[in-house]
């Protein structure tokens, strides 16, 4: 296991994250203006179509985040990479937030569109909920405490099991429901036009930048936390050794 160096900054900001943060804020404001005042309402879904600007980017970034967690888990098990381990944890936390946002916005959107908050027959909805629950379990493993490397290994295996089982969950729900209310991909079916499409793509870009910004901060917090724990342990070992040397000298 590689122990991180001890001479890192005591804060998580940098000029890159500050500029990125400003870009995200500007992007959110632009999205708000375009989404509420420029993009037209839908013929069928009326104003509720505006949920697409948050819902679709959140869903995409959920899968990106959990993809990072899966890769990070693999890299921890394979290479014992502390860097990837911290990245996997950071991505899982942010992914859970995105996933929660996807579920909440989906439910709110579903009420006027499908006349129900929750539709069991919808494959993507049910699969996303199971993914959410799996990743909550991943975070629970992360918070269990204990030996640093053991926690990382446990979490990595959970992350990989979740990644491998997700397609089976998806397939089983698909067979089980045998129908779906969910509309097909909003981007590829070509139904979105002009400002609606532009605002949604902008939403994806802004959410991706937000993900990067949050990842940088959360990664650095994770790095500092680890360093604190490892540093504490090193200090404690050094203190015990000093005591032993003193005791030996006295004798």
């Amino acid at each position, binding site marked *: 296991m590689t122990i991180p160096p001890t001479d890192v900054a005591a804060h998580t900001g940098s000029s890159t994250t500050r500029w990125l943060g400003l870009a995200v804020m500007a992007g959110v404001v632009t999205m708000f203006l375009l989404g509420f005042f420029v993009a037209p309402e839908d013929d069928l879904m009326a104003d509720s179509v505006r949920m697409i600007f948050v819902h679709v980017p959140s869903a995409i970034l959920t899968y990106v985040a959990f993809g990072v967690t899966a890769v990070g888990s693999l890299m921890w098990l394979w290479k014992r990479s502390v860097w990837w381990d911290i990245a996997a944890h950071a991505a899982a936390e942010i992914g859970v937030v995105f996933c929660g946002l996807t579920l909440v916005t989906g439910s709110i959107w579903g009420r006027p569109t499908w006349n129900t908050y929750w539709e069991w027959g919808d494959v993507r909805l049910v699969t996303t909920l199971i993914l959410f629950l799996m990743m909550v379990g991943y975070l629970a493993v992360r918070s269990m405490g204990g030996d640093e490397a053991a926690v990382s290994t446990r979490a990595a*295996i959970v992350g990989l099991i979740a990644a491998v089982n997700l397609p089976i969950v998806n397939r089983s729900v698909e067979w089980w429901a045998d129908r779906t209310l969910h509309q097909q991909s909003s981007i590829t079916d070509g139904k979105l036009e002009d400002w609606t499409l532009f605002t949604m793509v902008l939403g994806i870009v802004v959410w991706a930048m937000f993900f990067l910004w949050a990842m940088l901060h959360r990664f650095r917090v994770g790095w500092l936390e680890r360093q604190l724990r490892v540093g504490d342990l090193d200090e404690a070992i050094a203190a015990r050794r000093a005591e032993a040397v003193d005791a030996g000298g006295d004798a």
Partner: protein
Amino acid sequence: MFRDARIVAAKDLQIEWRSRVTFSQVVPFATLVLVLFGFALDANRPVLERATSGLFWITVMFVSTLAVQRSTSIETSDGARRALLLAGIEPAAVYAGKTAAVAVQLLLVQVVLVAGVVVLFGAEIEAWGLLISTCVVATVGIAGAGTLFGALVAGVRARETVLPILLLPVLAPVLIGATRAFDDAFGSVAVDGWSWLGLLAGFGIINLVLGSLSYGVLLEET
């Protein structure tokens, strides 16, 4: 490896046989859950008959968390885990043995549960072959995933609460597949139960492979 797996499975089953935990606690718990479902659904026969398959497998899921916790605690007490490692048995064999032991216990509980749903819920079995195959294939998947997660939470704080959080979402495909197959076996819904067995088998194989590969890492590092 098969010999070692058999020894580990025999050891776990012997401990179980001597302690009688499965018979004295797990089986009564499973029966109790069925009775409570009856109360919750207002002893409404048509509703119970329609929901029998789902209620059966939810009960099995609950029971599986107990069985896995029991199987894990055998290894964590008195440093038995370390002793297993020192015995030079391949981790994959330990995993296979423990999975087999959990599967045997779950199958025994299911025998009682099948009798329970026939008597209490008025279920009528129309396809014994499908019913038995579903029980075996689904149970192997449940035991495989359960044993892996059991090792994962072994020796940590709050493992009793973390295990269900981890295990139950992963078992969602088993609940769906086994319930559908049982629907066919009970004749309550017109579905092709045999096609669901393929999904259950796929789940079982994938989780057994994952378990065999990662059990050693868990045994040594956690």
